[in-house]
């Protein structure tokens, strides 16, 4: 592999690249899916290849291949340079990556139990037991239980002198129960919806989730929701469970702070952002209790690593401090552009804060979320509910939609309870809330404490063309928002 990397870099330079980097990525994935009591799939996949990114004639080109051969390395390097030169036919300015980044080292996700050493039988037994517990509940019509384990080994090398090897390991799991009656379909999930919760940890993460213990509860809730009252139409106080706060952060903050979106390079697909550079350092994004960081260094997050895919070290940076918007997620190019745009300031250094991430060898790094975390507040959840005279508590995301500038959102949850005089009362089905991002975060008057704080994993974040799925983390605890419009099924 070292020879392939060296040959690729050398070939790119010989063909005229002023900069080149190579990433070799090898991914092993194991997935287990149980559906309605039967094993739907036990699969393992291996995927290996390399991608070369070059600057030639002041423009970027990228080519990649799954054929790990020296001859192919020459072809791919040649193609990348040719593509860069074609890009240069339609360029406005030369690519500026800023000062060289020279990094050498290794990083490995710390794990207690390597999930690839745990037997298939043990994993299946756990899933089948959880599935059986759900199916035991009368009225449940379909069930699903899954586990996913991913090991990604990657080597990054550049003509600037970087050489980095990393091994990132992820473990994920989840269960879902669906109940159908009289045209009503209700689903409950645990620990999170969209299939699973996931972290960069080992099999100990799976054991901690205790799927079997939670299975009867979510199955019962799915059935109970069939006959629950619909969520009323109202403008009221809303308390969101931690995983839904995580989703709210992801959609209305995480994407909005991606500096490539801000500069319009995702305009045709993912969209742009309302957090324009003139707002940096002065815009009131949320209330004073809203403190958000991007932290690629925190253990366990899906956005935790040693270096990003441009070889920039993992960092923790402030995004929202006491409600004021103070930081973007950046890569090398966009950080330089922001510096040219705004000049140096406490919020603008011209250096990447390490958010360039690629899905695999066959994709270029884009600015992606790392772990975008809402820092914990001081409230115990019980106290927060007791402190709420009237409102609705919603939990676990069911649907999510937001406009292309990340302002107007509408999120549905799996379950809700009415809050009356400080108590969680009747169950409500099909709850939905909607709002405008800064108005919503400014209405946040309480965030729950560390004891409720979970580093949630989002393993399904789409962006870019060709499409890339990123795995991002979002630390969050339940939080309260005032004067929110809520409604049920329309």
């Amino acid at each position, binding site marked *: 592999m070292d020879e392939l990397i060296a040959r690729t870099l050398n070939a790119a330079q010989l063909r005229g690249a002023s900069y080149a980097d190579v990433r070799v990525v090898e991914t092993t994935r194991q997935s287990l899916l149980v559906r309605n009591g*039967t094993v739907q799939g036990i*699969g393992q996949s*291996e995927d290996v*290849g390399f991608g070369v990114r070059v600057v030639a004639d002041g423009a*970027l080109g990228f080519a990649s291949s799954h054929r790990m051969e020296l001859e192919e390395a020459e072809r791919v390097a040649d193609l990348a340079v040719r593509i860069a030169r074609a890009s240069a036919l339609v360029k406005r300015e030369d690519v500026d990556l800023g000062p060289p980044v020279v990094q050498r080292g290794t990083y490995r996700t710390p794990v207690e139990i390597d999930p690839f050493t745990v037997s*298939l039988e043990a994993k299946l037994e756990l899933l089948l037991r959880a599935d059986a517990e759900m199916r035991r509940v009368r009225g449940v019509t379909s069930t699903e239980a899954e586990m996913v384990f991913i090991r990604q080994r990657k080597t990054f090398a550049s003509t600037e002198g970087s050489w980095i090897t990393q091994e990132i390991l992820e473990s994920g799991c989840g269960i879902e129960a669906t109940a159908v009656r009289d045209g009503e379909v209700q689903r409950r999930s645990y620990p999170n919806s969209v299939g699973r919760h996931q972290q960069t940890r080992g099999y100990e993460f799976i054991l901690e989730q205790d799927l079997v213990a939670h299975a009867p509860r979510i199955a019962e809730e799915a059935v109970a929701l069939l006959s629950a009252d619909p969520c009323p139409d109202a403008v009221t106080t809303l308390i969101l469970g931690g995983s839904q706060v995580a989703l709210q952060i992801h959609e209305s903050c995480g994407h909005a702070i991606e500096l490539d979106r801000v500069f319009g390079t995702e305009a045709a697909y993912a969209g742009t952002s309302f957090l324009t550079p003139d707002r940096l350092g002065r815009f009131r994004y949320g209330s004073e209790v809203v403190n958000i960081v991007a932290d690629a260094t925190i253990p366990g997050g899906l956005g935790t690593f040693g270096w990003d895919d441009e070889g920039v070290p993992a960092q923790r940076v402030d995004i929202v401090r006491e409600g004021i918007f103070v930081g973007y997620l950046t890569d090398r190019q966009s950080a330089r552009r922001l510096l040219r745009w705004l000049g140096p300031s406490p919020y603008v250094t011209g250096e990447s804060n390490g958010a360039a991430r690629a899905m695999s060898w066959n994709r270029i790094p884009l600015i992606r979320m790392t772990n975008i975390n809402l820092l914990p507040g001081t409230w115990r959840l019980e106290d927060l509910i007791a402190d709420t005279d009237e409102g609705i508590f919603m939990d676990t995301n069911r649907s999510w939609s937001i406009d292309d500038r990340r302002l107007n959102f509408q999120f549905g949850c799996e379950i809700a309870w009415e809050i009356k005089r400080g108590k969680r009362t009747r169950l409500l089905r099909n709850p939905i809330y909607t709002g405008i991002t800064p108005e919503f975060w400014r209405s946040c008057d309480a965030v729950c404490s560390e004891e409720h704080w979970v580093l949630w994993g989002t393993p399904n974040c789409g962006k870019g063309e060709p499409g890339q799925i990123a795995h991002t983390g979002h630390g969050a605890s339940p939080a309260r928002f005032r004067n929110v419009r809520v409604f049920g099924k329309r």
Partner: protein
Amino acid sequence: MLGERRVAELLKGALAQARIGEVEIVLLAGHEALTRFANNTIHQNVAETNGEAAVRLAVGKRLGSAITNRLDPEALAQAIAQAEASARRAPETPDFPGFPAPQPTEPVFAFDEAAAGATPEDRARLVGEVIRLAEEVGAVASGALSTAVEEVAVANSKGVFCYHAGTRVRFRTVVHREDGSGYAERAAWRWDALHVPSLARSAVDRALQAQHPREVPPGVYPVLLDPYAVQDMVSWLGYAGAGALAVQEGRSWMNDRIGTKVLSDLLTLWDDGRDPAGIPLPFDFEGVPRQRVVIVDRGVPRGPVYDTVTAARDGKPSTGHALPKAWPEAASLGPLPTHLFLAVGDATTEDLLRALGEGLYITRFWYTRLVHPRDCVVTGMTRDGVFWVEGGEIAYPVRNLRFTQGYVQALAGAKQVGNETYLLSNGRFGADRVPALLLESFTFTGVTEY
């Protein structure tokens, strides 16, 4: 490109080595290049060569699978061994009907040498033309132009071997100018079927029309939907309920409606993976020939599409709509339609505007998500050009709106169908061909400030 002979040798050789059980191998290989532009410059320009083989192996009714992207005999043998090891440790899947037996599959020609041979310079020149058109009016263009060669093969130990090589080209652009934007998109398998400059011109024109939008309050309005928005509706109907698994589990919009007229009788929707007017793939990922399946016939749901597992449950033959089941993303979805066609009508855009009289004319929907499956209730935003229509003519652009709408109910109120169809990529191995639609009512639940 690997070519049929090499693929056949590789897959049949691997199957011959398998010692036990039934084995199925799905191979996906190809080369894709994509030139992406924004701010009137090419900013991302990429190419990929890749190939994957997905093995499913059954020991009796015990199933295992493995995927590799190393396409050599040794790697395939390892994948088969791995799938076998998994299968041996798996409990039985009682309703596994076995892999299908061979059926005659007529090939469909959908390979264009010009698309396969398109160079980075070819793509850059066309993108340059798009940018020039935008710059002429002080606008900013973004988008992507891609070309791909795709090889798909399915083989199993019962003697199935199917191979298809096709090309795919796709262009999309969003053009922004001040406070308005326009959009254009098409897919094709022939390079010269993609008229990039005329598509760019239409997006530029739409952006110019969309300047200085006014606010229209949320409410229920009649709407004229461009085919881009119609594809979103058709795609959700397909994804969230036109597959047999959703119907069998009672979570489809078709449940309790099959055979009953619930949509406008102007609407006929079918899936046809063999029609060269789409992006054909003549067999599914179990190697079963794709059938033309009428999903809605003049407003009446006729039934879902099947793979072998769901078909066996209902005592029917597969319609050839299996997804690649070894891929985890597809494992729990069941069969899906991936080549949808909505019947064309006879109304021109002017006819449709005149018939709309007063209401909203919408370019496309964005970030749509399923809220409730049984009525296919979806929420999303409008994007890239919304207009208020009065007296059958566009009066002025309006700000984007959020909608929450049951697609089944909305399509029950289809009043007219456009006389032109667009072929639009659906990201699921195919593309959909749809016309514009005039709908009696559509529910908007919020507005944005732009």
